[in-house]
């Protein structure tokens, strides 16, 4: 065991030039984020651009988006375990690792947003359960993290021992993790959805749209990561798996756009006072229009990506597919981040319009948290690949595991 960890550290320290540049880049971002967070912790959240009017901002926007990315795993878990779709089964582990990184980022983002993070333990002592959706969210997010850590650790442990994992162990984890993945989106959506004070969120379509958009952004990121991974290492990812994922994304994006259209129709056609946040997003309100360019960018990104994914020819062409993945990532990031959170507060409950854009400190702290996620993911991949190649093993030195037996 000790040898294994020694080897693991060696593997993590070893890499080509690109690897060192990448890791140093991430460490630099983390350093910057920590520096900014220290300033925030010392001076208070006054260093952000949030206010009593727009009381949640960039941190919670990124949190919401990352909850969506965590769905990447379920999108791959279902075809691989439930339908035993071989090409995806080979790579499902990488999706589960992405879920781990995403949830860790979610938790960090929430902590960054708290006024008194050191008082966080109060939540464990006097949780307002079942009344507060925030308590529910803490439970489901941590539960999801544990499930994915369990799955990844078990599979890697078996592989390092030179054995394939047992489905008798995986089934319970898989069967719980599928509904659980939906629960993290539903609960996070309900967190906003349940507030009658905020008409923009208080619409029943919020939760379904949460899931639909989550099933786009996570897998889109996976597609890009898989291609990088197979370029940089010998990990096998078949074109068949990639195009199947792209097909799923097309359906999810179609559903997402349909639900969005339903919402837009309702708001603009009925034209009640509750249309104000939508107007703020798309056209600006009383000359306040900081979000307008973002909203239209997201709209164009999502529609273009949907078109590229739904046409088999552009879906199977790697150039257009990757472009579409990028568009989806940007589109959903805006749409489900700032585009969802900020209009909840604009106009505020007393009709005031406060234009919010994040401060430099908010940007740096968030970038640091993204870097933590990326570094965590890099290290996990860097652990998994040598295990599958038999270079990193729990077996006695000298004995090589039968690599072929690890493939499912």
């Amino acid at each position, binding site marked *: 065991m000790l040898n294994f960890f020694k080897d693991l550290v060696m593997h993590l320290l070893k890499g080509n030039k690109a690897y060192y540049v990448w890791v140093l880049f991430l460490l630099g971002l983390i350093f910057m984020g*920590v*520096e900014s967070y*220290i*300033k925030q*912790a*010392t*001076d*208070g*959240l*006054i260093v*952000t651009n*949030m*206010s*009593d*009017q727009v*009381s*949640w901002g960039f941190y919670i926007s990124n949190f919401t988006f990352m909850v969506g990315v965590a769905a990447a795993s379920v999108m791959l878990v279902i075809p691989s375990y439930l339908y035993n779709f071989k090409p995806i089964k080979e790579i499902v582990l990488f999706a589960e690792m992405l879920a781990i990184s995403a949830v860790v980022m979610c938790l960090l983002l*929430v902590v960054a*947003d*708290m*006024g*008194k*993070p*050191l*008082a*966080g333990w*109060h*939540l464990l*002592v*006097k*949780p*307002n359960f079942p*009344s*507060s*959706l*925030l*308590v529910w969210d*803490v439970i489901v997010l941590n539960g999801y993290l544990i499930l994915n850590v369990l799955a990844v650790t078990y599979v890697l442990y078996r592989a390092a021992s030179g054995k394939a994992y047992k489905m008798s162990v995986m089934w319970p984890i898989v069967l719980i993790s599928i509904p659980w993945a939906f629960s993290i989106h539903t609960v996070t959506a309900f*967190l*906003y959805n*349940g*507030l*009658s*004070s*905020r008409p923009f969120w208080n619409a029943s379509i919020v939760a379904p749209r949460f899931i639909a958009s989550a099933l786009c952004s996570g897998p889109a990121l996976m597609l890009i990561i898989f291609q990088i991974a197979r370029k940089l290492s010998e990990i096998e990812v078949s074109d068949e798996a990639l195009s199947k994922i792209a097909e799923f994304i097309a359906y999810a994006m179609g559903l997402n756009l349909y639900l969005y259209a339903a919402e837009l129709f309702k708001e603009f056609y009925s034209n009640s*006072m509750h249309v*104000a946040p939508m107007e703020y997003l798309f056209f600006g309100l009383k000359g306040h229009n900081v979000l307008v360019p973002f909203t239209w960018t997201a709209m164009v990104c999502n529609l273009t990506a949907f078109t590229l994914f739904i046409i088999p020819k552009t879906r199977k062409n790697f150039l257009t597919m990757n472009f579409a993945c990028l568009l989806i990532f940007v589109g959903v990031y805006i749409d489900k981040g700032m585009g969802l959170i900020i209009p*909840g*507060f604009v*106009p*505020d*409950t*007393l*009709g*005031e319009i406060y234009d919010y854009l994040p401060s430099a400190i908010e940007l740096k702290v968030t970038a640091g948290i993204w870097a933590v996620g990326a570094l965590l993911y890099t290290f996990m991949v860097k652990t998994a690949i040598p295990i599958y190649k038999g270079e990193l093993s729990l077996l006695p030195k000298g004995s090589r595991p039968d690599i072929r037996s690890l493939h499912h």
Partner: protein
Amino acid sequence: MDRRDFLKGAAIGMAAIAIPPVNASASYLETFFQKYYREMTPEDKKKVVERLEKEYREKYHKDIRVKTTEAIPGVLYGYGLDLSRCIGCRRCVYACVTENNLSRSNPQIQYITVLQFKNGEKWVTDLEESEKYYNPETVPAPDHFYMPVQCQQCEDPPCVRVCPTQATYKAEDGIVVVDYNWCIGCRYCMAACPYGARKFNWGEWNVPTDQINTNTHYLGNRPKIKGSVEKCTFCIQRVREVPGRYTACVEICPVGARKFGNLLDPASEIRLLIETKRVFRLKEELNTNPKFYYFFSL
């Protein structure tokens, strides 16, 4: 910033987060592990109050009294605001700031927001045409009218429903209070409140020492904590006294537009106005059931 400065800054910052100032470490730990207010025994409360008063003395060189006066049995506070009379002078806003020791700057915290409406414009349910930053030479401005908004002390408060730690709750006398020490600063209550009544301490609490009101309540106007939420408490430090005092806003109002009393007392002024005037409550459609009644005397 060079590396040395950064490291120094980082060290100080880390210390600020994690390590208490050396001479106050016992007090720091006591603050950190302080219990939830509603679960404190009278002895616990006494100890906490002593610690707070000592801290305040060291920090502000002033004797600030922190009371823990309980709710008076048989009392449910209600508030009336006469829109026929309000002239939009904002004296209530500043009387409240002074009485409740609200941070004066960066940003100044105000519990009361007075909205100005133009005659004939929409109001009541759609507040988007309101002007919060009006500033005429004299009030009332011609062709305008005013509606002050503050915590409506809901009987079914959305803020209490969403608070993850039960730090905010409705006391026996109907006042929605915050245990500032127990609040984790997640601001979910601010998102949930339909009346913009909850305010966050974005920066360090700041009130010039000579302006600190030394008559304070644990759940009310004591010095606030950076990173926690606060709100109107119907001047809990005044109204729970026997004999009780009016809230600062009721006391200051030059036109007598503000009424306050016990909803359970059939002979109270607040009951009289509810029973004899045309009253309405803000955002009735949300079923928050406020104990804050707007009415018209004319």
